[in-house]
């Protein structure tokens, strides 16, 4: 795809995103007609409809865009780094680490210290698990290869996951608390959470984007990248850091939302090819769009009941992934 075509695509996606975001303002369990909405936005007096629009719908729209972009960005980074189409933001332990952090916070009754304690603990747990995977993965055999990282990730995820299960069995009254928290969702977010989580996600995604070219080189394999004069280990660490910061912030804000980080990079590569500097922005825009639409469905399909958004993303993402799988196997047969 030429530079011009790429710019048009990004502009079109951004426009679609803006349109979807505006449209999402009208989606919800309370029916607010467009004309009334314009009145409300310009009016100053407090009213319940205004509260619904500005304190409930708008923050969750912003959060959907942020978290969708974060998961898609981290997914792009990990799929590029591991040369593995199955990699997602949680592939090297981010979700099990977050679960352990949240569990400890719940068992220590940390929420008494403030509403930020639980997400903060999940954030730290997520970073700690990924850090551990990185240390173990790079210690194995002297230097890290994508494969040892992936294997260490699987092992650490299993160990941390069973620790979580053990803690929860020993304190089964807290089980539902953790379950509810992990399922998460975007419904009960506040501007304050977005104010601390947003910049973190922005910084993470921007770092991944700055690392897009080294990521391309790493995609050629370690030897080739090294022969190009790339300090492989250092760049790999930088990419893992940026991606895990992004993932941890997303998990802390919205719980564990599956499939967005897996599907968006694939779709982006179908549209713009393999260069990560192009894949990343398209992937982030698609991820934001996907999560936004999924959340619209989550809050309106069964209203006034709310469906956990991760169920919607998995319902949409699962079939899409199967579709990619079939395409892939057909391509191999043709060879």
């Amino acid at each position, binding site marked *: 795809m030429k530079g011009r075509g790429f710019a048009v695509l990004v502009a079109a996606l951004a426009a679609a995103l803006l349109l979807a975001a505006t449209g999402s303002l009208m989606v*919800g*369990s*309370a029916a607010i007609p467009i004309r009334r909405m314009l009145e409300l936005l310009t009016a100053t007096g*407090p*009213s*319940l409809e205004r*509260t*619904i629009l500005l*304190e*409930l*719908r708008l*923050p969750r729209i912003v959060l959907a865009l942020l978290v969708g972009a974060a998961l898609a960005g981290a997914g792009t980074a990990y799929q590029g780094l591991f040369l593995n189409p199955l990699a997602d933001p949680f592939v090297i332990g981010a979700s099990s680490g977050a679960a352990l952090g949240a569990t400890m916070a*719940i068992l220590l*009754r940390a*929420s*008494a210290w403030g*509403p930020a304690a*639980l997400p903060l603990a999940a954030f730290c747990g997520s970073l700690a698990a990924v850090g551990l995977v990185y240390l173990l993965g790079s210690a194995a055999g002297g230097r890290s290869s994508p494969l040892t990282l992936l294997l260490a990730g699987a092992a650490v995820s299993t160990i941390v996951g069973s620790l979580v299960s053990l803690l929860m*069995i020993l304190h*089964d*009254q807290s089980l539902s*608390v953790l379950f*509810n*928290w992990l*399922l*998460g*969702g975007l*419904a*009960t*977010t*506040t501007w304050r959470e977005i104010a601390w989580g947003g910049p973190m996600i922005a910084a993470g995604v921007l770092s991944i984007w700055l690392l897009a070219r080294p990521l391309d080189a790493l995609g050629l394999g370690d030897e080739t990248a090294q022969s190009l004069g790339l300090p492989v280990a250092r760049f790999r660490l930088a990419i893992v850091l940026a991606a895990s910061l992004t993932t941890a912030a997303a998990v802390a804000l919205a719980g564990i939302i599956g499939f967005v980080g897996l599907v968006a990079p694939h779709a982006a590569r179908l549209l713009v090819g393999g260069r990560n500097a192009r894949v990343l922005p398209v992937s982030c825009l698609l991820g934001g769009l996907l999560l936004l639409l999924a959340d619209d469905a989550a*809050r309106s399909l069964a*209203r*006034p*009941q*709310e*469906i*956990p958004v991760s169920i919607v993303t998995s319902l949409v993402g699962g079939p899409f992934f199967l579709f990619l799988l079939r395409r892939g196997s057909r391509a191999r047969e043709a060879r």
Partner: protein
Amino acid sequence: MKRISGGGRPALLLLAVLLVMVLATGRADAAAVPKRVISLAPSLTEMVFALGAGDRLVGVTTYCNYPPAAKRVAKVGGLADGSLDLERVMALKPDLVLAIGDGQRRSIDAFRRLGLRVEIVHSETFDDVFTALTQLGSLLGREAAAKGLTAELSRRVERVHRAVAALPPAARPRVFYEVWDRPLMTANRDTLIGRLIDLAGGVNVFADIASHYPQVSPEAVVERRPELIVAPDHHASVVDARTLARQPGLASLPAIRNGRILVLDGDLVSRPGPRVADALELLAHTLHPDLIPVPLVAGTRKAPAP
């Protein structure tokens, strides 16, 4: 034997039947007044104590915290199959195990295979309380106590009913019961708390939803404009009027602005036990202080306005 042959046969049969009957009634007598009882649910534990048979409990669940004496009874595990300690139950040599059934099937089967007497006392809804008390009364040989207690509970429920029955819909405050904060969860009309809100002369704003404890969107709560918010005293952390008001969007609700918040002991409205009348009177008093002028029940508190 030879001497009673012939015409003696029916006599022998009669003797055998009599013997069996004596043995059976002897067993039934022993079983009718169990001395070592294990309760596998907090609601059943409360009822056993309320019937004056608390001293016969030798084992309860870790959640059995009321009355205070229940905390001193040996614990045999949690509510559900996986968390029940079968060996502990056996070691306590119970002559009666009281179960609620749901989620305990595997343990119940195991206990019965091991020769224990297990009785399932269904206790889920408001009306279950009355049948469960009667059933427990006959199981424990406390029929009179059960009769007295159910009569007293009925009287208290009837008093509230008479006070609020004639209220027109407009005079019934709209109530939101917040089961959980993140995600936001509530209860429909088929739950114990849903029924209590109805009986207390309120309108549960989410009565109509199909699932018992649905997750609802915050904007649906705002849209339905509850005039009273009721919440148990614990979610992930301690709940009070301030934490309720801090939730996104809720601060603008009439209930929060007017400080119409009732934070109560969650056990009171989630356990179909002998305290349902306490819960009902507390709710009715909060909704209609002029009609139900009762003092607050111990173990509950009204949250101060934020």
